[in-house]
């Protein structure tokens, strides 16, 4: 079917073509710039620690380890088993401290409290501390990101 009148003028068409072309060029140039703004980051799949360093822990005590650039806590539970936490407050990302006498984790930034199982029990934290999986393999403690499927 042939239209009797044109939907847009020749000038409008050319302007649209030019604007669209320049717009795509800008987007094509902007994309790699935006892409390069964030560096890649991968959390470690596991961290290996010598068991000897942690064998002297009494029940209720905790000792730190490095979960990449974040603080980790390895804590001995009452039954003698080990539990691992990422020591970063779930409120606003401050590093928490473990208070062995009270058996609680404490965040000094906004006074957030977690019990010895990492459950948020006081102050602003909206969620429990992140837990990591602990596996014993001979003389090595392996701390893993996730529980094996």
């Amino acid at each position: 079917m042939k239209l009797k009148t044109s939907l847009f003028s020749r000038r409008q068409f050319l302007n649209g073509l030019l604007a669209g072309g320049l717009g795509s060029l800008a987007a094509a140039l902007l994309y790699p710039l935006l892409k390069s703004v964030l560096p890649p980051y991968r959390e470690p799949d596991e961290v290996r620690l010598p068991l000897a360093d942690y064998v002297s822990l009494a029940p209720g005590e905790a000792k730190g380890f490095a979960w990449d650039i974040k603080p980790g806590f390895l804590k001995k539970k009452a039954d003698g088993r080990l539990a691992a936490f990422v020591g970063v407050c779930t409120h606003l990302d401050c590093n928490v401290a473990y208070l062995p006498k009270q058996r609680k984790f404490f965040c000094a930034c906004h006074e957030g409290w977690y019990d010895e199982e990492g459950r948020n029990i006081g102050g602003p934290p909206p969620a429990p501390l992140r837990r990591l999986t602990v596996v014993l393999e001979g003389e090595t403690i392996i701390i893993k990101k996730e529980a094996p499927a």
Partner: protein
Amino acid sequence: MNTSRMGTAFRAWLDERLGWGTVLTFLRGKKVPQTRHTLWTYTGSAILMFFIIQVVTGIILAFYYRPTLKEANSSVARIMTEVPLGWAVRSVHFWSATFMISFVFIHLVSIWILKSYRRPREMTWMSGVLLLVCTMGFGFTGYLLPWDDLSLAATKVGTDIPRAIPVIGNFFTKLLRGGEDVSGDTLTRFFGIHICILPLALLAVLAVHVFLIQKLGMSLPLEAEVKKKQVRELPFWPNFIFREMILWLVLLGVLLSLAVFLPPGLGQAADLRAPAPEGIKPEWYFLFLFQTLKIFPAHVLFLSGETLAVLFILAGGLIFFFFPFLDTKPASRKGKILTGVAWLFIFYALALTIWSLLD
């Protein structure tokens, strides 16, 4: 040809090419209204003075500062102990920042209460709010650079806050931090923002701000608008400039005295895995926001308290930015309710700041 004739000839030569005669004629004829509110107009040039001091001292600090995980703290220690008068330069930078932010707040509140943002000065106000954002950005990014335990904890919190904004928050936090977590990348990035992005942004907005003030002239106080009475005027040059210089000299004296007798300290180098130090607080100008975050409960209905607090603060910021379009009364109307709101806001900010300080 004697020197004065050479000078005249050179000026004429320049004027033929630059055409700055119009600017000089304008400045020579410029007048500033003399009323009982004129004192507030001095705050603008005081801010400018502090900004210039920041640029000069900042350049010197950048000669020695190293924005890396290993060297940031020790390079600041070197500035404080080894660089000749480096401690004084850093101290002036620190105190001038404090003064700049104080005067930005005074400037803003005076304009709010005097309703100087009304037609046709809406864009002057909006550019001013952008300058406020730049100034607070300078404070926030600069606070991290010494890389001690306090500045690390403050930055972890500060950069985590945008996460609570729905949809775009996560990306914004990653953009600020240069990754998921605060790390050496964050430090380098903050340095870049502090010495490159923010100065460029501030200068661009400042150009618009100052141009608009020249184009539109000083606003008249409300009662002068009402009575249409003749207001006394003072020539900008030299009368007003000389009066401003008195204030600059006084402020410079106070600034240097504080800088010499109360230089800022430097904490231990930050450890990314150390627990946050007890009783951390941001710089004083963020305290009311910090306390606002603190008083929100963990959960309100279906939202987390954090999200609600951040949305509350964002909404406040947007209302602030678009304020001239919410108060569209003619320049002569007093707007008592809005003055009340301004005082309420000042009272809120002061009360929460004091609360936070005592906490």
